[in-house]
């Protein structure tokens, strides 16, 4: 029974990570790259307008980082709950 409870907790933590990471995913692409693009374009990043940069470069870099962070978090979580292979 306690193992059952543990697994429930494992799953809940997993879901918490997903919500956190997916909100960042949403923010850099849909929010910065599309919805707020005009406002961000007023800011310059070298030769780039910031909104344009997010849409064509920045979002992609953040996506890569998100997956790497996810791997780190999950490997730690798996170990903690002893469900790693």
């Amino acid at each position, binding site marked *: 029974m306690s193992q059952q409870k543990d*697994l429930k907790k*494992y*799953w809940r933590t*997993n879901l918490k990570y*997903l919500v956190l*990471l*997916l909100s960042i*995913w949403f923010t850099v*692409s*849909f929010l910065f*790259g*599309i*919805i707020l*693009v*005009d406002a961000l*374009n007023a800011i310059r*990043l*070298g*030769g*780039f*307008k910031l909104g*344009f*940069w997010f*849409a*064509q*470069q920045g*979002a*992609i*870099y953040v*996506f*890569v980082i*998100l*997956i*790497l962070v*996810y*791997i780190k978090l*999950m*490997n730690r979580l*798996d170990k903690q709950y*002893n*469900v*790693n*292979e």
Partner: protein
Amino acid sequence: MTLQVWTWILVGITFSLYIGIAIWSKASSTKDFYVAGGGVSPLANGLATAADWMSAASFISMAGIISFNGYDGSVYLMGWTGGYVLLALLLAPYLRKFGKFTVPDFIGDRYYSNVARAVAVFCALIVSFTYVAGQMRGVGLVFSRFLEVEINTGVLIGMVIVLFYAVLGGMKGITYTQVAQYCVLIFAFMVPAIFISIQMTDTAIPQIGFGSKGTDGVYLLDKLDGLHRDLGFHEYTSGSKSTLDMLFITAALMVGTAGLPHVIVRFFTVKKVSDARKSAAWALIFIAVLYTTAPAIALFSRTNLIETVSNVEYEKMPQWFTNWEDTGLLVFDDKNKDGIIQYVGDAKRNELTIDKDIMVLANPEIANLPNWVIALVAAGALAAALSTAAGLLLVISASVSHDLIKKMIKPTISEKGELRAARLSAVVAVIIAGYFGINPPDFVAATVALAFGLAAASFFPAITMGIFYKKMNKEGAISGMVVGIVLMLFYMLKFKFDWFGGGSKEDWWFGVSPEGFGTIAMLVNFVVAIVVSKFTPDPPVEVQELVETIRIPSGVGKAQDH
């Protein structure tokens, strides 16, 4: 050496490499054939996934589309990479834990129903066939331009090569050829980009050159915005699409990416759950190299193109201009008979029509790069098209031999018989794909983008709810998938092919284009599935237990046994 000799040499070398790998990695069991034995390393799987994913569309068309549409092209950049975040976080680890061979396998088992399995097979076949026809056309295009053979001969050569290594090696052969193909295609994509970046900005890294000043001290992006304004095009860094449509198209491409069977199935090939996560990261890193370079190429080639042709005498056009005119993909129509090329935004005065697909292929020639670089691009484009075609053909053959024959029609079939059936259906699939490559129906180009909408509308909700919503039952999932794909097909046929009374842009529902409609169809799929499941019995206890086990990484070995 001439360009043609270089191209034959590079294409010859890369093709022999693919064949060599295929012979070395022959499949001897169905497990080899479907999932490469299930022991591929995360790094190799990441490379293979990247090649599998990056098709002729990514390699040839995408930079061209961005080049012509500027900011509007961002939907492809964000959409086709952001989908990997969904794949890594929501699908790959759990499907790996589930540990079968195909996507319909998961749908059929999770929803304890052969009807669900059949619906999934139907969706997988529609998505994969629309996609594969476009790849074959890409192969034909490269052959006809660079090797001056008939498009049809080009398609036939491509068919024979794919046939050879897909039929012989199955997933195992495909995986290792895809690793080689990634190396070829990324090298081919980066070399000209680096050359041109140095030419235009003194920076070797295209991603930085993208935001740098040109030789005249003006930021390249500002300069291009200025050129666009002067010629009457809409500004390069701002869009012409509505915000809502941008959102929906991006979402449809992301979710579609995560729902494409030929991508998902790659995650069945690794050893354990943590490897599935790792290979998703590798895949996105390898993809990001090309995807962050593509918009830089788009900017460079657009600027180069305008500077080369705009207000210049037709007589002074370089060789590449006439070469592409011969293919009919570049057309000059001297409307005011002054012998000078007017390339402007106003359709009435504009005299130059350029097919978007030629930008990446013509780019090295426009920038006067050496012949071997141009030949390399041809070899890279072929690698991109062939690797994706092979991945898709495998999905088609597994759908037939495994999901239809083994799981539904004749469960008693022997291992050997199933392997033979898999090879045979791969042969048939190659022939059908080749037919579409030789006789491309008008709808091919239009439907490749829509394949994503179809995948988003059908698979994504069924798979994610299968993992994250234990109470989702077969009635809900089946009705969701059916309503989703039918709605998407209806919208696509109505607004792209003028069926059901047709309609123009003004008639789009909520102003959403057919490319973005996959998002709506997906949402409808979710709603229908949830509502129906509330009024029908819960899934059996065993199925709920199955969901519990796929949520936990440990014990992969057990889940694998059939």
